[in-house]
């Protein structure tokens, strides 16, 4: 992964102008100060009041961490607005062409804009966190430095990921309104990420939070790289002309993406890298599941209910007592088909992770089951239907990974939609073989399983 050259002085010039613009309005400055000072003051005072009026130590300690998460996240959300505005705002105010006509390179403009938004957001986040710590922790007898440091690092990465993603949206939107609508692509995944982070904070294990920070670094790097490669003067200035008859153009794009799709064997060969990744997901999942159960890293109580319901489902068909084996087979088939369709639908927003999970998750459950019982018993649960289901899942997972890879691959010459459409067309065409395979697997499970 090569990064473009950036003249730091030029990038800083762009950043400092944007920064000056962001803080030039008094109302905005007042809002920034309120976010940095007032909210942490309120949150910190609340925790102290709880401690003073006899809240249990465990509750106060946990709450003090949740408060830190809260004061850090609220200003981070402000960065989304600034980042969304970065390019499309200039475009609407007609200042973009002037900026693009200068000798500044694409990477310098992009880096400058990201830097400006990041510096505002991180100043607010860390300013808020410092105020909160100063108000909350002195005299409390509890200062979880490891958790707070992990929170600080994961916040940088979280904000960087959010900003990088929002700048990509800003590059691709034609109006501020469109950018705001498209911001859902950031807000929805981020809300899941925040829930996960909140859960990790409540669990109270710093190493998990550090792992989370690492994951966020990876996501931020991918998004930043996408922004660098997707920045195009050409696209920014020429897009209006190219978008006449959007419905006809979309229909044409869909037609052409289906036009030259290969057969299943050729398809598997041409997508061998994502297929290999999906195939690796199953043994990797099994290994990690086995280790997780053996070491107690994931408590049995978490996975046991899932395993029990799966075992119960395999022994007692869903329609037991009410329907025929045909109904059972249809029920299994429709569940699996739904999972395959969901994986494809989620591939774009998860950057293909859903495809990997299609093989990793069953592998994990198998490994976990093997650890709590035996490999023989666990494997007997997936034979003979697994012999058909697993290869089908590998093909579907590989193609979903391909969709995700197409979605995060940006190119300055454009063509994002055609790449994603082509990857999705591959998936849809593969369903011609995957759907019968799932039907066969369902029949095997009901009559021979």
């Amino acid at each position, binding site marked *: 992964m090569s990064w473009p050259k950036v003249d730091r002085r030029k990038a800083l010039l762009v950043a400092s102008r944007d920064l000056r613009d962001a803080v030039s*309005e008094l109302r905005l400055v007042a809002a920034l100060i309120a976010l940095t000072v007032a909210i942490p003051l309120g949150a910190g005072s609340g925790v102290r009041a709880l401690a003073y009026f006899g809240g249990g130590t465990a509750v106060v300690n946990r709450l003090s961490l949740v408060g830190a998460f809260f004061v850090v996240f609220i200003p981070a959300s402000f960065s989304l607005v600034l980042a969304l505005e970065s390019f499309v705002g200039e475009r609407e*105010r007609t*200042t973009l062409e002037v900026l693009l006509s200068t*000798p*500044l390179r694409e990477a310098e403009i992009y880096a400058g804009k990201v830097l400006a938004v990041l510096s505002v957001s991180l100043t607010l986040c860390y300013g808020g966190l410092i105020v909160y710590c100063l108000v909350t922790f002195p005299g409390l007898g509890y200062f979880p430095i490891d958790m707070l440091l992990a929170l600080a690092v994961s916040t940088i990465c979280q904000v960087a990921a959010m900003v990088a993603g929002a700048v990509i949206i800003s590059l691709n939107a034609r109006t501020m309104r469109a950018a705001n609508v498209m911001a859902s692509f950031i807000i929805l995944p981020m809300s899941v990420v925040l829930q996960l982070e909140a859960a990790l904070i409540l669990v109270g294990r710093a190493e998990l939070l550090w792992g989370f920070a690492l994951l966020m670094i990876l996501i931020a790097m991918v998004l930043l790289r996408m922004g660098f490669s997707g920045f195009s*003067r050409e696209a920014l*200035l020429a897009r209006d002309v190219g978008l006449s008859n959007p419905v006809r153009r979309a229909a044409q794009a869909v037609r052409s993406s289906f036009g030259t799709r290969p057969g299943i064997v050729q398809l598997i060969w041409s997508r061998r890298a994502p297929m290999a990744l999906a195939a690796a997901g199953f043994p990797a999942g099994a290994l990690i599941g086995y280790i997780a159960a053996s070491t107690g890293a994931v408590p049995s109580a978490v996975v046991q209910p899932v395993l029990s319901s799966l075992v119960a489902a395999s022994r007692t068909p869903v329609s037991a007592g009410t329907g025929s084996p045909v109904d059972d087979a249809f029920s299994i088939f429709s569940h699996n088909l739904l999972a395959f369709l969901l994986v494809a639908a989620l591939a774009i927003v998860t950057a293909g992770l859903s495809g990997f999970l299609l093989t990793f998750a069953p592998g994990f459950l198998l490994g976990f089951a093997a650890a709590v019982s035996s490999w023989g018993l666990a494997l007997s649960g997936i034979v003979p239907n697994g012999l058909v289901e697993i290869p089908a899942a590998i093909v579907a997972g590989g193609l979903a990974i391909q969709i995700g890879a197409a979605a995060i691959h940006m190119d300055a010459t454009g063509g994002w939609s055609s790449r994603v459409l082509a990857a999705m067309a591959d998936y849809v065409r593969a369903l011609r073989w995957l759907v019968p395979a799932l039907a066969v697997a369902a029949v095997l499970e009901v009559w021979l399983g």
Partner: protein
Amino acid sequence: MLEVDGLAKRYGEVLALRDLTVRVDEGRCLVLLGRNGAGKTTALRCMAGVLLPSAGTVTVDGIDAADDPAAVRAKVGLMPEVPGLYERMSVWAYLDYFGAIYDLEPALRRKRIEHLLEIFELTDAGDRWLGTYSKGMRQKVALIRATLHRPRLVLADEPTSALDPDSARRAWVYLKDLQKEGCALVICTHSMEEAEHLAGDIGIMSAGRALAIGTMTELRRKSGLATRQEVREVPTLQDIYLAIVGERHELAESRSA
């Protein structure tokens, strides 16, 4: 200074510019005339290294715009039709920012900004935010910005459309002075007076192609107006323009019919 050979630009399905070939030497000025949508702005953007040609070549001072667009942009000053100023900046801060982008030393920037603000009578408004400027003042600032770094080639899209006659004349004098210093100019305009005043060569464009390029005398000859009995005086550029574009328009209509 500027050599354009067979330039074409396509936006998706739309061919905005086709087979444009022009040459502008140092100290010369080419004025592009044409209806709205004739491809003038696209031509300027390609010449400025902002858009890359779909076909053909653009060379500025020996540098191919497709090979090193950033180097071309450093030698060019582009003044778009819309001034595009940052509303919450003073003219000083704005010009200083762009001067720094073009690598001008701070002392030199200051000197040039002072000088240019004086020429365009903006010194007294130097501390006001650009958002408070009138349309004409904004256009002056845009012209200053485009020429602050003393580019080898100035590309201006309707540079005086919002200026009062007095300010427009002042701008023309300024552009003429740049020409004398060896700067090449390409100007798009709808003002025949401006074109006659500034042009060495005139290009008349329609539907993405150049219908005619040449000096006033050459265009007069091409239009055929000089030989017509009914024209008793020397035909103006307006007469020539209408004759050339009108003829082509009739042709296009007759083809479609």
